[in-house]
């Protein structure tokens, strides 16, 4: 059976098409302004890459913060659920998942079957997300990939005080003025976020194996900082940013079909409101 998983996040769309569990095609790209369109377009490309027609695909499951926007999906599953399914497929020994994407960092505790037992997310501030890294790389005037390499060369740890991404930016600038090496600054940035994410992970409890996924997992500098913060090994699968999509595809194959979750807000009820 052929199934597809589509992960539509804040910044990127990731698509995985599988046949009886084996991956036929992976396709990723930026969401741009219109996420639905981007998903549509990339899905077409993915099918082409896999040499398939739409009707060949039995079931499509979407996930990610904008999963519900994917009109052609047969169902939607929550992103943490997709993470869990994807990770357990790739690394069966995984018990704790740390997923750091552009706008959210989350930790998930899973059972050996890949069921979500507990989860926590980095609440309401950007200082624990990929965006923080992007902002800092802009301030440091080196691309993120470069930052990763630099931080691995760093020899000392400098604490960053700023919580806010924008103040972090100016803290980086003042570190530059203090003639702090770019290596050390890069590490300071990674350590700062790792600290935030690390404490989120501790909320669900750190059970081995800890697996990190999401776009930021491609940043070895950050992974290093995270290992340091957690004081334990952190595994990273190949293409860590495709894991959510893979999980959705797995769900599709398994036939998990949640009816689309409407985001409509129920009208407010007051304290007098009762059962009557």
């Amino acid at each position, binding site marked *: 059976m052929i199934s597809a998983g589509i992960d539509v996040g*804040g910044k990127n769309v990731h698509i995985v098409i599988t046949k009886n569990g084996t991956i036929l095609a992976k396709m990723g790209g930026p969401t741009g*302004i*219109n*996420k*639905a369109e981007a998903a549509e377009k990339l899905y077409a490309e993915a099918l082409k890459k896999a040499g398939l027609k739409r009707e060949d695909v039995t079931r499509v499951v979407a996930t990610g913060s*904008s999963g519900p*926007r994917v009109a052609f999906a047969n169902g939607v599953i929550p992103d943490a659920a997709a993470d869990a399914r994807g990770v357990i497929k790739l690394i069966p020994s995984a018990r704790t998942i740390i997923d750091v994407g*552009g*706008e959210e960092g989350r930790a998930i505790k899973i059972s050996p079957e890949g069921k979500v037992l507990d989860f926590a997310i980095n609440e*309401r*501030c*950007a200082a624990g*997300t*990929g*965006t*923080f*890294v*992007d*902002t800092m*790389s802009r*301030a*440091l*005037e080196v*691309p*993120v*990939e470069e930052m990763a390499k630099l931080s691995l060369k760093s020899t000392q740890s400098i604490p960053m005080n*700023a*919580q*806010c*991404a*924008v*103040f972090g*930016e*100016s803290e980086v*600038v003042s570190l*530059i*003025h203090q003639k702090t090496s770019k290596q050390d600054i890069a590490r300071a940035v990674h350590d700062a976020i790792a600290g935030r994410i690390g404490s989120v992970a501790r909320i669900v409890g750190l059970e081995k194996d800890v697996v990190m996924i999401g*776009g*930021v997992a*491609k*940043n070895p500098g950050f992974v290093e900082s995270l290992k340091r913060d957690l004081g334990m090994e952190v595994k990273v699968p190949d293409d860590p940013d495709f894991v959510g999509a893979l999980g959705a595809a797995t769900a599709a194959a398994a036939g998990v079909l949640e009816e689309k979750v409407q985001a409509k807000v129920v009208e407010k009820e007051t304290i007098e409101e009762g059962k009557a």
Partner: protein
Amino acid sequence: MVETKKVEYWRWPETSWVNPDIDWKKAKFVTAGVDVGSVSSQAVIMVDGQLYAYSNTRTGSDSPESAWKCINMALKDSDMKVENIDYCIGTGYGRVNVPMAQTTITEIACHARGANFMYGPEIRTVMDMGGQDCKAIRCDDRGKVMKFMMNDKCAAGTGRGMEVFADLIRVPVWEIGPRSFQIEKEPPMISSTCVVFAKTEVVGLLQEGVPENDIMAAYCAAMAHRITELLNRLGMEEKFAITGGIAKNEGVVKRLEKELGVKTADKVWYDPKMKDKGLPFDTQIAGGIGAALFAFAMLERGKAQSARKA
């Protein structure tokens, strides 16, 4: 993960100006104020307390460089050299890294003093909307700070935020103000003013097909609201003037006036001579003006010696 930069919608034009009617060589004191902010840098040159030249440039990652860049730009159409300056005061967020400055004074004091010079002695409340700080200042008729407050450890509702927004919505930053009024009716404001999360929210609105102008209106309104909160905490007293970059954004200013129920002082020189000559009025140079005026005062009062090298 790294964003490849397209057109930089946040980038605004850099400017400079020299007053042709002043012969600085006759001056008793030539003073300068260099305001190195987190986003923009200005240099202001004053001749015996008269505005002689200024520049408004973008701050790079290196403050000393930015300082040189803006002071050289201010003097590019003048025969004055930096060595001719008697006393220079550095201000702004990068004030400690202004090589040509003899001393530093915070932008809070400088903006109050500058606003007093630009808008006149009736100003009692000054709002400096800078790159990453909002400063609400109460001052007396000489522009002396009586009380002030700054935004908390988060950059929501600052100039930097507006730039990120401009980039995101792909509209030149100076167009946001005017376009934010080309709307049917005022939309609800963006709920999160956090630079990063506002981004998420804006993207959401764009996807729901909310017209760009409405989103700009919603963002400007959110910013105006943040500033109102700060002013309420400070305790607002008229007349009220705005300095800094955001002052140029009518979209924010008009909404701010509406929410406060207070009119902001007109952006024209208080000094009739300057007004009549139609000298350019740039709200971003208030800090530099204040610094240059303080430098002049310190020389006059013998609190400082001329550092003139030539």
